[in-house]
């Protein structure tokens, strides 16, 4: 439900005019100091990371609004509105430099900046929103009376399916459906003959699509400029800072396991039962049981195993041993081996794919015949309890976990599972299945060390 709260808040950024929510159309001709370069970027990054966290916990729009408002106030806001705006613009453009350099970074930055813009937009008053829409050159047709009359019933029907007790909206925008993909995807608008009829209270979606598309193009351009000249020109000044900033919050991506973390096939069963997170345990178990997994399941488990240190030859042997029991070794070699090599960057455009993070797994959409996804999100309560039972979780811990699940805190639920099965607390929280594995191995290794008999 996206209601624009134009009465309750009067522009928490101080002014209420569109000057307080910039569109970042062009790099500012401002002068600032090198220290500001780094500090401003880090402050903004905190906000973006908090948004990322909030989204992966499935926070509702109102909760996200609060989160953004608090984070912005804590990290970015200055008493002087002009100074806030200056920091806002500078930090955005610095982060553009940092995050334009790799595709995954661009995608993350784009999503978080769009989310930040979305919730800040919602917090603006009606005047400010209107002036932003004009700045984006939205010449959208407001739905005329005659046409409105012919589809009035359907508009009401659609509105009620989104927000069951809504009052009828007066103003609608008629736009090509291509301009509001999120509203179409979630069936929040009525569409007819290729047009979407966007009620005033959903206009945020429209504005954000345009914002996103503009930033996306800008990122691509920045990337080219960076590679072509800036990186070289600034190699003693800005470039090292940009590199450092790029490593700050994304954390390890587990694509290149350390040498000592290699695992061998004979250990894999044992490791699965002690150190795999539930999502991977489930996929592993299904693979052993059915001697088959569908594509997304193979991707999720396969990349995880790569991150855990399974070498390509061992991976091929592992998958062949399972699949050949169902489809035969020959068919395995013909149809499945290629994509395993592809995951390791040995085929096609030779991208070395990174194992999926929790956020990505939680957002996936398993379908008929699939076993991938996040069990805390995608399993029915009954199936989840059964799966956790098999891991040895019960009693109080089970209740706590279920409670987290009901509140959609899937990663917290997984963290509690870790704590219950290892008998130790996990301070950092689980963000990545490979992190679960690494923490688990660390725990068991230190346990073994301590239990070594002394000479």
């Amino acid at each position, binding site marked *: 439900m996206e209601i624009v709260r134009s009465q309750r808040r009067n522009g928490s950024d101080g002014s209420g005019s569109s000057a307080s929510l910039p569109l970042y159309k062009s790099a500012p001709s401002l002068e600032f100091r090198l220290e500001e370069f780094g500090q401003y970027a880090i402050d903004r990054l905190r906000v973006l990371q908090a948004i990322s966290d909030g989204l992966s916990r499935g926070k509702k729009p109102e909760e996200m609004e609060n989160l953004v408002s608090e984070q912005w106030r804590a990290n970015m806001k200055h008493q002087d509105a002009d100074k806030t705006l200056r920091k806002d613009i500078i930090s955005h453009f610095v982060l553009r430099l940092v995050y334009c350099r790799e595709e995954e970074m661009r995608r993350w930055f784009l999503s978080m900046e769009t989310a930040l813009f979305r919730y800040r937009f919602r917090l603006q008053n009606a005047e400010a929103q209107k002036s932003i829409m004009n700045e984006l050159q939205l010449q959208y047709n407001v739905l005329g009376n005659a046409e409105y009359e012919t589809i009035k019933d359907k508009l009401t*029907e659609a509105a009620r399916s989104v927000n069951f007790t809504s009052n009828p909206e007066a103003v609608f925008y008629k736009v090509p459906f291509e301009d509001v*993909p999120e509203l*179409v*995807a979630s069936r929040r608008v*009525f569409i007819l003959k290729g047009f979407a009829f966007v009620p005033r209270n959903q206009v945020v979606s429209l504005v954000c699509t345009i914002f996103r598309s503009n930033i996306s193009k800008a990122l691509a351009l920045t990337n080219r400029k960076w590679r072509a000249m800036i990186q070289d020109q600034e190699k003693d000044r800005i470039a090292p800072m940009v590199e450092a900033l790029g490593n700050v919050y994304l954390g390890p991506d587990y694509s290149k396991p350390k040498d000592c973390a290699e695992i061998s096939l004979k250990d894999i069963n044992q490791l699965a039962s002690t150190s795999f997170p539930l999502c991977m345990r489930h996929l592993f178990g299904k693979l052993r049981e059915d001697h088959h997994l569908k594509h997304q399941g193979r991707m999720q488990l396969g990349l995880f195993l790569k991150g855990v240190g399974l070498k390509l030859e061992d991976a091929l042997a592992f998958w062949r041993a399972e699949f050949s029991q169902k489809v035969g070794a020959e068919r395995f070699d013909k149809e499945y081996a290629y994509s395993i090599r592809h995951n390791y960057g040995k085929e096609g455009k030779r991208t070395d794919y990174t194992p999926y993070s929790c956020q990505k797994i939680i957002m996936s959409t398993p379908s008929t015949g699939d076993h991938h996804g996040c069990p805390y999100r995608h*399993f029915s309560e009954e199936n989840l309890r059964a799966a956790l039972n098999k891991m040895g979780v019960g009693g109080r811990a089970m209740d706590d976990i279920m409670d987290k699940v009901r509140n959609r805190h899937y990663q917290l639920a997984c963290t509690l599972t870790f704590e219950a099965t290892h008998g130790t607390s996990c301070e950092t929280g689980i963000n990545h299945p490979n992190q679960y594995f690494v923490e688990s191995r660390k725990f068991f290794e230190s346990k073994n060390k301590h239990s070594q008999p002394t000479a």
Partner: protein
Amino acid sequence: MTKEKEEHREDPMQIDSNRVPTGSLLTDYLRIYYGKFFPYTDMFKWLAYGNDGKHPGCDSSYFGRREFSFTIKSDRDEVYLRFQSFFNASEMETSIKAKCPTKIDIGAVYTVDPAKRHAYAQSGFNPIERELVFDIDISDYDDVRYCCSGADTCLNCWPLMTIAIKVIDTALREDFGFSHILWVYSGRRGVHCWVCDSRARRLSKEQRSAIADYFHVYKGGENSLKKVTFSGPLHPFLARAYTDALKNEFEKWVSTQKLFEHEERFHKILQLIPDESVVSELAEKWQGNSVRWEHLKHMLQSGSKKTQGLRRCIEEIVFSYTYPRLDIQVTKGMNHLLKAPFCVHPGTGRICIPIDPKKCEEFDPTSVPTVAQLIEELNANASIGADNYVEKTSLAASVHLFRTCFLEPLIKTCKDELENAYNTMMQQTKDSLNW
């Protein structure tokens, strides 16, 4: 000589039209099929979208930038050739006849000729146009059909595909405004849909994703229980699907699949009801009672139970059983390769013929012509010295349908678009030359 060896040596023109050909027999049949039956010119006209070189506004590179892929099977091996491309219909025909693929897939139109992609930087080779496509397999409904499973289908369960065609075709035309839509039988257990309007071809990945999600109602993997949940009034699209198609089809399904006559079958339905008291009351009353579905409906609709989640329970049950189950990933990607119409399905020998969405209830998958049958008809026609003997086979009706319902209207639209674009460009050039 063993029987096997005899079969290997037999004359491919002496055929048993009931047998599904495999191995070298399949290759022989394919050779004849590609020699006499495959409609090269029609396929070219379709995929050229008006760029046939006859109008000055044509892009003569367009057809050549389309990716095709061939699957070529021999006795021992299966080879998969991607990034095939052809300059025109004649080159395509020559290549198909020479290679005799068991399957032809159609991919996207790229920025440059796929066969020459290595000459360009990686960033210069991207898909820019691609039809909006859908793939529906009846094996995704195995948990709700009891007459068949896996790759099999019969006239009892095929109606699921009919429903899918109706619901999606209506939405594509009414809601999204598309009109050039081709439905094709996939040859064994499902249907494919190709939306060919230029607006559809130019959709980005994100927009395709949005459309796929619009249709995504049946959600959940093997481990979730309830795949359809409606928390409030239905969106107009869903309400229309329910009223115009799903509601009545479910009534029929109840009877053809005997959903309420067997305990495991109605137990599955009871599992979808989020109220223990309702479930146990029904389970008790149903010992020996046969009018169960009416009873269930009455109980859930009477509104006497105030439990949250019961208001839409009937719709949830109906949708769970009958709503189209798409392979979402096929629709979302821009370079997903999809089997071409008029291919021969190697598992069944059947031709992947078009289906008229307006008459989809009449489509019978069990009577689709097979390659063996077509060759037999060809022989019969030849032996009586008939002219145009291909046009007197069962395939003629399908080619005719392809042309009249799909190709001709499409070409007309494409020509109009080309003409308009060309005129606009000429006008702009004229304008810019004026001082």
